């Protein structure tokens, strides 16, 4: 029972990370209709920024700020130099350009930080465990991640539904022409949305540092899962991104834990572990396939 709760919490934590990435991605997809393969790079930049600052200064606050600033700055620069010119282009050109961005950014990071993963120490204040229910202890840091993610989800939801800017963002995804006709500075809106996406992804990276390996390539691994989240949740919907992220996060985590255990009953431990790892990696894509069979548009349909 304890194990189950712990694993579900792990799943939620992973889901929250995915949500931070997926929220920005789904907005960029839904509003600007741009496929940005380099979205994972903001995640990596946030992680590296925070890790570097933590190493240099030892300060938690500075590390977080550095990571966020790095991601946001990268987002602004990339939007200005590259993305801006892709709005009216085919998906093919977008794929090519953002693929080039990944190569450039990844190799740049390698040149700056080398190929070895960067070790990010767990912040001392958060390194303990917390008793969430009598008898169940859970790492404090992971709880912080979950809390942050839920906070962001609520904040985003409030922003999109209750503020004027948020209304523009929503309208921009379903009624692009009308927004333009209303005289709204669409350019600015796009830049804002893109920057917001980069910031959220960077936040994910900052949070990821102490629990995952900070290395070149981390962005792409999680990006593909983020795509799955967006597909399951429905392009353009933040609610969908949240639902999809939870589904993917929890399913993936539970599969990783349960499958090897199940397989051990029919084969050797090492074979079971290897096969289990592989099959559980595949599992989430099978879930995606199932969703596609029933609802090709994703769980939450955004009319456009």
């Amino acid at each position, binding site marked *: 029972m304890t194990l189950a709760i712990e694993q579900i919490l792990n799943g939620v934590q992973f889901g929250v990370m995915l949500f931070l990435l997926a929220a920005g991605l789904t907005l960029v*997809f839904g509003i600007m*209709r741009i*496929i940005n*393969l380099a979205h994972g790079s903001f995640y990596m930049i946030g992680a590296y920024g925070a890790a570097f600052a933590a190493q240099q200064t030892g300060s938690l606050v500075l590390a977080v700020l550095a990571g966020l600033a790095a991601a946001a700055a990268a987002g602004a620069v990339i939007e200005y130099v*590259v993305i801006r*010119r*892709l709005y009216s*282009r085919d*998906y*093919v*050109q*977008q*794929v*090519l*350009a953002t*693929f*080039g*961005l*990944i*190569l*450039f*950014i*990844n*190799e*740049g990071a*390698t*040149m700056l930080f080398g190929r070895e993963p960067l070790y990010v120490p767990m912040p001392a204040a958060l390194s303990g465990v917390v008793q969430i229910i009598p008898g169940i202890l859970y790492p404090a840091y992971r709880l912080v991640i979950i809390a942050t993610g839920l906070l962001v989800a609520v904040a985003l939801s409030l922003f999109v539904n209750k503020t004027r800017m948020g209304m523009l963002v929503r309208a921009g995804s379903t009624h692009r022409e009308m927004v333009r006709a209303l005289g709204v500075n669409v350019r600015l809106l796009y830049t804002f949305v893109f920057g917001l996406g980069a910031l959220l992804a960077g936040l994910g990276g900052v949070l990821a540092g102490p629990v995952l390996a900070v290395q070149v390539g981390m962005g*792409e691994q999680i990006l*593909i899962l983020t*795509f*799955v989240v*967006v*597909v399951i949740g429905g*392009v353009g919907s933040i609610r969908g991104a949240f639902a999809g992220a939870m589904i993917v996060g929890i399913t993936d985590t539970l599969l990783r834990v349960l499958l090897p255990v199940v397989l051990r009953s029919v084969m050797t431990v*090492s*074979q079971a572990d*290897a*096969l289990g*790892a*592989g*099959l559980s*990696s*595949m599992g989430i*894509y*099978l879930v*995606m*396939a199932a969703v*596609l*069979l029933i609802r*090709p548009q*994703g769980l939450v349909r955004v009319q456009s």
Partner: protein
Amino acid sequence: MFKADTAAVAKSAPRRAMLRVAGLVALALFALLLPRVATALGNPALISLATRMVIYAIAAASLNLILGYGGMVSFGHAAYFGVGGYAVGILYYHFSAGEPFLGFIPGTNQFLVALAAAILTSALFALVLGALSLRTAGLQFIMITLAFAQMVFFLFVSLKYYGGDDGLIVRRRDVLFNLNMADDTTYYFVCLAVAVVYHVVFWRLVGSQFGLVLGGIRQNERRLAAIGISTYRYKLVAFVIAGAGAGLAGALMANFAKFVSPDMLNWSRSGELMIMVILGGGATLLGPAVGAVLLIGLETVLTGWTEHWQFYLGPILILIALFTRDGILSLFKDGSGGRD
């Protein structure tokens, strides 16, 4: 679109046709004489390089069918490349181990048999994954094809029996009649022959009724529905044919490198294939081949200069994406597009 002076166009049409033929002849000569030249230059590694280019030309051409001609931006094409390679690898493994695959399929080291198996297997994968993916379009389609390719990647990673992450060594190349396949020059010509046959078939395919429909799908699917064509079927068939082509290339690669690994199915491989198609200009017969030569050539040259060649390749790709309409070849064409 440019409005040409009809007389000028009429005059230049036969000239363009002549240029095309001249270009093809030059290309053929170059390809045939390459091993001689390489040995003369004392650089036999060039033959290996050329073989890789030929194999990737086939893979890129197969993607071109759905991407360039059909307008389907599939980001998971490397999956079928890998499946084809593994078909060869697994069959050879069972041949040398002496026990049949899944208990009843005998292993083989016969080139033609392995190739056929590779084509069939990758076609089957393409059928299943394509049937699901094609239920979506646009952004979703791109993401889904990528995701499914990842899934197949993890499938092969999890097969520790066939090497898993470390890959599978194919000790000897498959046997074809009594040719000395171990000889790099011989193998180069085998690949070249396959490439020629493949491109001839491809050429007929895009000019056929099926090809005409496919081009129509790229330009305006709504129009096709309005003349009574259920586009899903045609897209799926194209997807399967493309997958089979990639499997063929993968089989050639497995024999060439004598090694297969999940790396062949990596998402960045899929990206490279797309880049080759885009570089060369989609919807042309030899565009992908040009793209393959260019990309591999570029990578080879840059690798020679610096370990961090991707740092320079990235911006080059960005520039090409931003400033050309139709890939490199379009820079050498006039505005009439030259679509087949």
